[in-house]
């Protein structure tokens, strides 16, 4: 806590000094910098209004809403099976992962359980979505810090995962594959062997990222000690996923509170954390998670049980009245759906808890007193998808 108050004090002093300079001599006038809405570091259209004193940021305020699509309102006029097509577009890089918590919440209300084979394949696709999402982060973060090569490598290797998602579900980005009570279809022939080959390639990407980017001295100079978030502040802001684990909090919903319908308990895997809480720690945790996810997929591919992929559910789905909240560990962090049903074809209310919304609300706190180039590193390492903020 002493670090925290000291840091706040420094920011306060810097801000007061800036104010004083602005007021006394007009030579170092304060300046307002608009970052976005069309900035490469904003993954969509996030606008950040930064007040500067020279190169130092006095305050930074994100202004979301440029892509608000009103999903919480739209869910109230869509039937349950139709909603998966909507929520696919929340975090568009790991689409399948968005469907799962909603479907699990509906299954919980209906008291339906997917067959073991469906649960298994669902978990595999969930992890593939994570790999596709985070491998893009590894490349994109390099791009933002000037390591262009990483961008090309990541986009090249992400294609292997997207191909597997496409051949299993028919959609590269928006699978719309998860159903209440199971999955739309079984896996195609030869998919398991192809996916294993893809996982090998992704592990190569992780190794390349390690040597090219994370181990690089310039990268470390740009990220180490930048944007430090202590664990208590991270929790208070509701940060989740790698942003929280990068602050040393050992919490992963896949391990600690895995909802029924996913089979992480049948796999031997590890949760990675890093104590530093800076941009480097967050990147490092994501890199380890990607590698860990390929190992999870490998293990699951070896143990897919036989059987149907769809439980017996009515064709016209009416969900019994009740309330359910299901939260899963999505690529960006903890994502949850609070579903209120009144026994109708459509939900009465769906509250969508998205990880990026909380993850980016910390920007005013963490950007106070940093330099402008570091703001890009901080935004990049917090890793948000705009659709995931605005919903």
């Amino acid at each position, binding site marked *: 806590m002493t670090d925290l108050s000291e840091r706040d004090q420094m920011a306060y002093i810097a801000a007061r000094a800036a104010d004083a300079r602005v007021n006394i001599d007009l030579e170092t006038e304060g300046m307002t910098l608009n970052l976005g809405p069309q900035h490469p570091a904003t993954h969509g259209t996030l606008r950040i209004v930064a007040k500067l004193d020279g190169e130092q940021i006095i305050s930074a305020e994100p202004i979301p809403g440029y892509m608000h699509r009103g999903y919480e309102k739209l869910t109230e006029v869509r039937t349950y099976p139709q909603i998966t097509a909507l929520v696919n577009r929340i975090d568009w890089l790991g689409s399948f992962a968005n469907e799962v918590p909603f479907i699990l919440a509906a299954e919980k209300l209906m008291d339906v359980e997917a067959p073991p084979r469906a649960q298994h394949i669902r978990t595999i696709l969930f992890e593939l979505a994570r790999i596709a999402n985070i491998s893009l982060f590894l490349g994109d973060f390099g791009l933002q810090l000037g390591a262009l090569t990483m961008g090309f490598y990541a986009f090249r290797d992400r294609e292997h995962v997207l191909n597997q998602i496409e051949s299993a579900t028919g959609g590269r980005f928006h699978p719309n594959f998860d159903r209440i009570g199971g999955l739309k279809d079984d896996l195609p022939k030869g998919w398991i062997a192809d996916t294993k080959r893809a996982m090998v390639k992704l592990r190569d990407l992780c190794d390349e990222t390690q040597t090219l980017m994370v181990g690089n001295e310039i990268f470390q100079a740009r990220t180490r000690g930048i944007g430090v978030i202590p664990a208590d502040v991270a*929790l*208070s802001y*509701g940060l989740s996923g790698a942003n929280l684990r990068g602050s040393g909090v050992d919490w992963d919903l896949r391990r600690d509170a895995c909802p029924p319908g996913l089979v992480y308990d049948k796999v031997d895997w590890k949760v990675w954390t890093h104590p530093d809480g800076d941009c480097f720690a967050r990147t490092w945790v994501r890199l380890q998670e990607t590698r860990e996810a390929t190992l999870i997929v490998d293990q699951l591919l070896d143990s897919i049980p036989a059987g149907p992929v*769809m439980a017996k559910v*009515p064709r016209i789905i009416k969900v019994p009245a009740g309330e359910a*909240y299901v939260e899963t560990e999505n690529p960006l962090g903890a994502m949850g759906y*609070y579903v209120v049903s009144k026994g109708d074809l459509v939900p009465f209310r769906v509250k969508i808890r998205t990880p990026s919304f*909380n993850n980016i609300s910390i920007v005013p706190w963490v950007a106070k007193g940093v330099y402008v180039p570091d703001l890009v590193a901080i935004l990049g390492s917090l890793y948000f998808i705009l659709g995931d903020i605005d919903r």
Partner: protein
Amino acid sequence: MSSADTTVEPDAVEAAEVPVVDERREALLASLVEALGDAVVGSHIRPLDDLWVRVDREAWPTAAATLKDMGFTFFDYLSAIDWLPSPYGRDMDAQEDLVVSGAEPKVPGPVEQGYAGGDTRFQVIGRLYSIPDALGVHLKTDLPDDDLRVGSWTPHFRGANWHERECFEMFGVEFTGHPNLVKLYLPADFQGHPLRKDFPLLSRRVRPWPGIVDVEPMPGRDDNEEGDGE
């Protein structure tokens, strides 16, 4: 099962089972009641799944602070629920539905609250999580229609800042003590609160949903409700 079988019917066995008691959540609820006293006005436990606690409006920030001291340091989300049945509900807004089914236009039903009960149309809902215990708790509180104000959680959880701003613009709930209660997504001059049930979804008003047409029986099948999956 053969007809000569004299064992107990499976249904009877299930009925005889002891209902699941969720000791951790019962204990948490008990300690909350002890800490907050009369402020806890309702609760609901779904065993091994979740806990809902409804508190008095005055005790809303206190409840958050109490839970934070009990180890619930992770702020999950905060929002509101409008329990008014929508006058623009899906089955009520498509005229095609009425033509196909020959039904009369419906009148909105009475306001019915969900788990942990309620007395008013608007309820604020928030969730806190304890990472060491792997335990989450939903807090609810009622807001009277003529006074949609409640204390802010921002002194206890910084993350509540944006959630309360979103709740403010979407439902019109005013959080007293919030440092910067302005609209988050919507333009500053936007009128109305979009997530309230009496706020019409304009795209639907302009072009009604085909409604029942999209779930008509498959050709050659005569089932109505029951199917065999996909």
